[in-house]
């Protein structure tokens, strides 16, 4: 028996897909918000509910997401610092204002580049790992096993990751600030014929505590976002190994997108 042709079949399918994607997006947003709320709940109520948040997994997550990321973040921060110095001097030379490069580079690094580069690297490194771990645990019934043992998966898996990220990403940003400014200084000082001490003086005069806090505070939000995106994408896995790969890729894309969008909103709000 033949199926009846639907009028405007492709248009209907398109709108159905748009509708499905919208519903899925709203669901995932809601799930993310729930995870955020539950993290606070377990953090403060865990002991009373006999579901204590333990320190060991928090340190383990901090080690993995923070300490082990130091080398790559240091290398890239140094590179970004030097690159900004190169571009800054090149652009300002045409106005004869290359001595002003320190101001632009210092503000650019502390307010924007260090938090953004660190956030993107952590999303690519730890956000993807978190999604892959959650997806694998979901497929192999480890999440079911936790529930059946009376262990809340959010308290056991999400809270340590979120706390570690919220602390370690800002810490990495502070380190990235120092390394990037050092890298920029190594190029700028000889290029505009000043001493390193003079470069440091100019840098300290150019930036305020507010500038550093601007970058550091938004990076804490990035850390929370990376965790939520990783968990939401990871737990949405379907299928086997292919599904794990798919959600891992999605976690990186969604994590970086969330960071850049949040950054824009944060900058807009902070500079009004």
């Amino acid at each position, binding site marked *: *028996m*033949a*199926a009846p042709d639907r009028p405007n079949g492709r248009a209907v399918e398109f709108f159905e897909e748009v509708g499905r994607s919208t519903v899925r997006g709203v669901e995932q947003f809601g799930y993310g918000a729930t995870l955020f709320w539950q993290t606070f709940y377990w953090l403060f109520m865990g002991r009373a*509910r*006999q*579901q204590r948040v333990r320190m060991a997994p928090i340190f383990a997550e901090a080690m993995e997401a923070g300490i082990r990321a130091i080398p790559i973040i240091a290398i890239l921060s140094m590179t970004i610092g030097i690159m900004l110095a190169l571009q800054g001097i090149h652009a300002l030379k045409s106005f004869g204002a290359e001595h002003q490069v320190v101001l632009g580079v210092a503000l650019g690094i502390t307010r924007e580049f260090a938090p953004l580069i660190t956030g993107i690297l952590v999303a690519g490194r730890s956000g993807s790992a978190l999604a892959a771990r959650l997806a*694998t*645990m979901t497929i*192999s*019934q*480890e999440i*079911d*096993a936790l*529930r*059946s*043992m*009376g*262990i*809340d998966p959010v308290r*056991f898996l999400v809270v340590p990751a979120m706390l570690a990220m919220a602390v370690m990403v800002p810490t990495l940003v502070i380190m990235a600030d120092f390394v990037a400014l050092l890298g920029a200084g190594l190029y700028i000082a000889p290029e505009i014929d000043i001493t390193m001490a003079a470069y440091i003086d100019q840098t300290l005069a150019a930036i305020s505590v507010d500038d550093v806090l601007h970058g550091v505070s938004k990076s804490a939000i990035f850390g929370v976002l990376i965790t939520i995106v990783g968990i939401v994408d990871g737990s949405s896995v379907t299928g086997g190994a292919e599904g794990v790969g798919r959600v891992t890729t999605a976690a990186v894309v969604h994590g970086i997108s969330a960071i850049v969008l949040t950054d824009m909103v944060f900058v807009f709000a902070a500079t009004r």
Partner: protein
Amino acid sequence: MSEATPAAAERSDDADIVIGVRDLVTHYGDRKILDGIDMDIRRGEIMVIMGGSGSGKSTLLRHLIRLERKTSGTIELLGREVDDMSDYEFYAFCRKLGVAFQGGALFSSMTVGENVMLPLREHTKLDQTTMEIMVRMKLEVVDLAIAETLMPAELSGGMIKRAALARAIVMDPTLLFCDEPSAGLDPVVSSALDELILRLRDAMGMTIVVVTHELESAFRIADRITVLDRGKILAIGTVDEVRNSKNDRIQALLTRRFEEEELDAEEYIRRLVGDKQNV
């Protein structure tokens, strides 16, 4: 043996009933997966739930341990309706339950010993030495003492199942649920696991629910068997009652013809080509 509405006939005021399921219905989307399940499981018995692929046996198990939410009906474990409990109440209640999953569901980042110790660490205030002793005792019970420091990836299929069983019994649960404990194992290992389940029942007095499609294993360990087919209970009875059942579907299951549905040619071709062509 009871058939059609089996547990209804058996229902009694038996105080020994530790698991009671009444008119359990569940849907995945529009599909009805479990249709009016009605069963009682008594203290200290081994109840085997068996059926072909897609019969709903694993779904029933997931409902019993509240990993799935039902559409309607009631499920009582140890006299408490599972869906009436809050999450926190259920987490505390889970200390009385042990679950051994089909694939083991061991945490790959932990050693076997750490896996078995996890429920103790999370639910008790025992010191490390006591927990280690208890873990070794449970690993001895499942003949896996040598594997305490091994990672799950280093274990064979049978060892994974035994490690999962050790983790499931480490809190000395009242109810033990096993999902396909002997699936994918060779007959010798499968038989050893069956012996282990019997030993657990006899030595620890547990009530054990086993989901399996392995007939030999089911007949070896069961006190009673529930036969599921297409989400409905075909029969509940002792091993002999099920073996001697006159029900065609049960006999088909016993002779391994359960999966072969009777289809007419037109229906078969429609399944193959979908609704896209005239057939």
